[in-house]
């Protein structure tokens, strides 16, 4: 039990050791948080599933009156939002939470309390979203909330506002979780586990977390702008005063397409763990699987406009995005062959887990191939926004990701609970799910080809439409039943399931090197790492290679701040982009030249830049262990920062005096949003610096141990750097 030097003990609350309900709430153990994630997402999965079943009932026959359009539109909006943000993403994060630290031989996540916070933000975000039902109606603008439909003129209930706030809350939690995951994987790997020896699931989660860190800010920035439109009557996405509804689509899909990969990459990781173990062979082409994942992640930021082929962006744009969308199919598609060739020549054990993995492969191929038909822009011009799309993304997300999660659940449940899920019920559930899933969604391809638009609450009784919709509805209920069966299996197996032992599948990664379920500190002793399959190497020492030293192991606090800064940088990029986009050409009303005094701004800009220098001096003094200069330079920093804020405040005051508010025109909208968010960051920085100062004065820095100053210093430099960009975009040309 005592194999660990508990240097992270200060990060555990003593409460977590207490038993009972309170420990569940107070826990910071990554395993229990992982379970909390999984239980929560299973609950939301049932909610989203019931929503889907009601929709399928409404669509079972033509011209049905079970629910009206109002309710139906809320149902599909909530179904989409729930399944994406409250089920698929957090369930994958839940698995990652439980297994990544185990698979890399760590004791916990890098920041256990931050980890708990991410979970609670998710839960409360989810509750906030559903609270909208009580507050006058759920959002009904679809999960991508196209403007201007989602603007207050056309969505007058508070649904979209709750939707925005809930997504922001969850978004913050998700980004925090992703940063935590990146830092965990970079810094807590067992000695000898270099980045090219990590299990593929860990690698995929790593790349996935990078995607989250880069993509979520795009969503956060765009929904913040939508919120400003709705609450402050600004004009980002209304067609009035030159706002561009299309810009919302660009912004949203900049997030939305990487999001698709955020929802499949960890699933790829699970398949890459399950298939080798049950085929008794290592993964075929580890380097290709891992490397192609990086390619997917990078390319995923360059393909979003394939969601917008019908918008009429212009031929050039359609051509390039068709090409890039086809390009991303290559690294995605070749993985299929890697998995198939992992099975080839193996000694396959047909457990439920493997059966789900095989179904995943075939169904994902269907979803991927229908995805190719969308990359072919002319086909997209026919098939987008029809049931063909609905079929396509359900094949990817349900037939793909959810089946992979099933494979992962049957594979890892013994580790989490100590008992194996019943294979007998499991196989019944598998077949029901395959039949139900394909019954529901295969026919939807045909419905799309027949011309049925998606998101329609009912449809005319044209030849064939009623019959196919009925098949789809029946399929959906079979699917629902299979989910119930899964629930039964879990409940039954928790009580009566076969005892698992440490390693029931004879698997090779580190999570199987400890007891099931693992003790709180995870490992009594982490085996020596020689290669990608530590437990195989233990059993076959004759083939094991010599251990290597860990390759790349940065300091965790600094790393987390750098990753956070990158994420914030992307947030500001969106705001800056909106400013440039809307101020290319002269618009009626005030503009930068007519309303801003660049000389005055230059003064307080200098003050902010000087504060970067002073905080650097303070850091230097900290490194040289000189207390007094450290404190003085820090005070200077705070004063300079405050001068900046006061300067900005007086600028705002002047504008408001002249009647220029955020609703005046697009210049004012984008100007106030961009500089306002920057000012907010400066204020947060000032607060943090003040806290550090107080701690210094209280004597916490006597031993020069805390790293807070350096970390906040990084943040402060970042805020200054953003201002340099903002200044050169808004003010510089006024000075020249």
């Amino acid at each position, binding site marked *: 039990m005592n194999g660990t030097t508990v240097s992270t003990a200060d990060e555990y609350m003593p409460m977590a050791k207490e038993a009972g309900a309170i420990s569940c709430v107070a826990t910071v153990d990554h395993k229990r948080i992982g379970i909390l994630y999984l239980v929560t997402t299973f609950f939301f999965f049932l909610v989203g599933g019931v929503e889907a079943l009601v929709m399928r009932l409404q669509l079972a026959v033509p011209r049905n009156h079970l629910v009206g359009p109002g309710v139906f539109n809320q149902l599909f909006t909530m179904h989409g939002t729930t399944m994406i943000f409250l089920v698929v993403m957090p369930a994958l994060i839940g698995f990652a939470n439980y297994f990544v630290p185990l698979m890399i031989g760590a004791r916990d996540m890098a920041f256990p309390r931050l980890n708990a916070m991410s979970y609670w933000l998710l839960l409360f975000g989810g509750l906030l979203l559903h609270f909208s039902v009580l507050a006058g109606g759920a959002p009904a603008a679809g999960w991508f909330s196209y403007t201007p439909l989602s603007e207050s003129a056309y969505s007058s209930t508070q649904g979209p506002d709750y939707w925005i706030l809930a997504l922001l809350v969850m978004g913050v939690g998700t980004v925090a979780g992703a940063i935590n995951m990146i830092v965990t994987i970079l810094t807590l790997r067992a000695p000898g586990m270099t980045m090219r020896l990590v299990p593929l699931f860990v690698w995929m989660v790593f790349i996935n977390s990078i995607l989250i860190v880069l993509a979520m800010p795009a969503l956060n920035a765009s929904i913040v702008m939508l919120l400003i439109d709705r609450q402050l009557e600004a004009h980002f996405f209304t067609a009035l005063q030159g706002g561009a509804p299309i810009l919302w689509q660009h912004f949203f899909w900049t997030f939305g397409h990487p999001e698709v990969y955020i929802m499949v990459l960890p699933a790829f990781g699970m398949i890459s763990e399950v298939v080798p173990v049950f*085929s008794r062979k290592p993964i*075929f082409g580890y380097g290709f699987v891992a490397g192609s994942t990086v390619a997917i992640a990078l390319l995923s930021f360059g393909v979003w406009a394939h969601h917008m082929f019908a918008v009429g962006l212009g031929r050039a744009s359609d051509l390039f995005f068709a090409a890039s969308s086809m390009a991303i199919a290559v690294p995605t598609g070749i993985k*299929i062959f890697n998995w198939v060739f992992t099975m080839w020549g*193996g000694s396959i054990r047909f457990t439920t887990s493997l059966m789900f993995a095989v179904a995943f492969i*075939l169904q994902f191929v269907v979803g991927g191939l229908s995805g*190719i038909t969308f990359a072919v822009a*002319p086909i997209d011009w026919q098939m987008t926004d029809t049931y063909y799309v609905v079929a396509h993304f359900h094949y990817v997300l349900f037939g793909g990701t959810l089946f992979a999660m099933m494979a992962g659940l049957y594979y890892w449940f013994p580790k989490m609970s100590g008992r194996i899920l019943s294979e007998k019920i499991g196989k019944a559930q598998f077949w029901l799910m395959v039949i139900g899933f394909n019954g529901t969604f295969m026919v939807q391809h045909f419905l799309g080809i027949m011309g049925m638009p998606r998101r329609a609450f009912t449809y005319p009784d044209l*030849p064939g439409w009623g019959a196919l919709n009925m098949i789809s509805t029946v399929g959906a209920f079979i699917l629902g039943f299979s989910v119930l069966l899964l629930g039964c299996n879990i409940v039954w197996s928790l009580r009566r399931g076969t005892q698992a032992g440490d390693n029931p599948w004879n698997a090779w990664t580190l999570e199987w090197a400890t007891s099931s379920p693992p003790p709180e500190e995870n490992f009594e002793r982490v085996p020596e790492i020689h290669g990608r399959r530590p437990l195989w190497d233990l059993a076959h020492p004759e083939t094991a290679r010599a251990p290597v030293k860990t390759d790349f192991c940065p300091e965790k606090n600094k790393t987390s701040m750098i990753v956070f800064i990158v994420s914030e940088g992307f947030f500001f990029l969106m705001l800056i982009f909106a400013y440039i986009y809307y101020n290319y050409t002269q618009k009626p009303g005030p503009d930068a030249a007519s309303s801003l005094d660049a000389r005055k701004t230059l003064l307080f800009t200098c003050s902010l830049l000087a504060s970067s220098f002073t905080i650097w001096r303070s850091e230097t003094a900290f490194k040289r262990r000189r207390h007094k200069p450290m404190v003085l330079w820090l005070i200077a920093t705070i004063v300079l920062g405050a001068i900046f804020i006061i300067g900005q405040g007086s600028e705002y005051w002047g504008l408001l005096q002249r009647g220029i508010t955020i609703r005046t025109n697009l210049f004012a909208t984008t100007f106030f949003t961009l500089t306002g968010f920057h000012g907010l960051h400066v204020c947060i920085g000032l607060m943090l610096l003040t806290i550090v100062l107080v701690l210094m004065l209280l004597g916490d820095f006597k031993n020069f141990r805390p790293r807070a100053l350096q970390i906040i210093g990084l943040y402060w430099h970042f805020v200054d750097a953003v201002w340099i960009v903002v200044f050169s975009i808004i003010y510089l040309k006024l000075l020249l």
Partner: protein
Amino acid sequence: MGLGMEMRFEGCPAGVFAVVAPVFSPVSPQAEALSHIFVITLLVCAAIFGIVTLLVALCILRFRGKPNAPEPLQITGNERLEISWTVASILVLVGLFVLTVHAMNVSDPAADRPADLTVIGHQWWWEVRYPNGAVAANEIHIPIQSNLLIRAEAADVIHDFWVPQLGRKIDVIPGTTNSLWLRADAPGEYLGTCAEYCGDEHAWMRILVIAQSPADFDAWQARQLQAAATPPSTLAAEGLKVFRAKTCVNCHTIKGTDAETSVAPNLTHFAERTTIGTGVLTNDAESVRLWLADPQKIKPGCHMPNFELTTNELNALTAYLETTK
């Protein structure tokens, strides 16, 4: 009373395939190009799916592990194999891309002249404006075998104009104009729909394109310019009074009366149309009466309120609207 769109296709066996798979029943060169590339792509996809399925099936059949079998040969990969399937998939996609460029050029040539007619998407109906000043709603009459350039606009939110047998779909976006080539080579009625979710009644925002011989089309277009006839009967005259008294004029136009706003469909030639409520009901006296009695019951959420007309008013208004030929 009949059920909107469905009535158009009853007892029309020749058209059944066209209704069942409009995407694969093109009647214009544009739609033909789309159908063609779709078929090719589907065949390529089917071949790839076949290969993967075959490989998986072989794995399942040949490599089923026996109990207590020794561990198989531990192969970690084969670089040559990996590179060859990567290259193969790139080649397939390059081929598809070449076809894509061709299909795009055929199905969506650049707009090079002023538009022939303007289509405006409203929540939840379509306004159609012809260059000669005629205004129609929901039913788009076009002459056959002529390339028409459509100017697509939106009055409120984003909609999408889609008639699968005639060609691509195009979003109609507030603040932006898009253009689209529309052509039908054979006379007939072609079903379409709004494809972009646009709010409550997105489902009932159907389109009917009626392709006619040029002579028929010209006659129709000329007829649209005529003002509505004076009500022939006293009941109908009573109906016109109701129409004017009940604020219908705030939204609808009937040429020849003082009703001149275009917030809602132009009703000058209302009785000629085949459906009402953008496809919800067939246009006959009984349906019109039902609709007027409570539009919110027929099409919940639509922008026409329930005017709570009395039976007499209903009868009169229905009689009047039936005369708007």
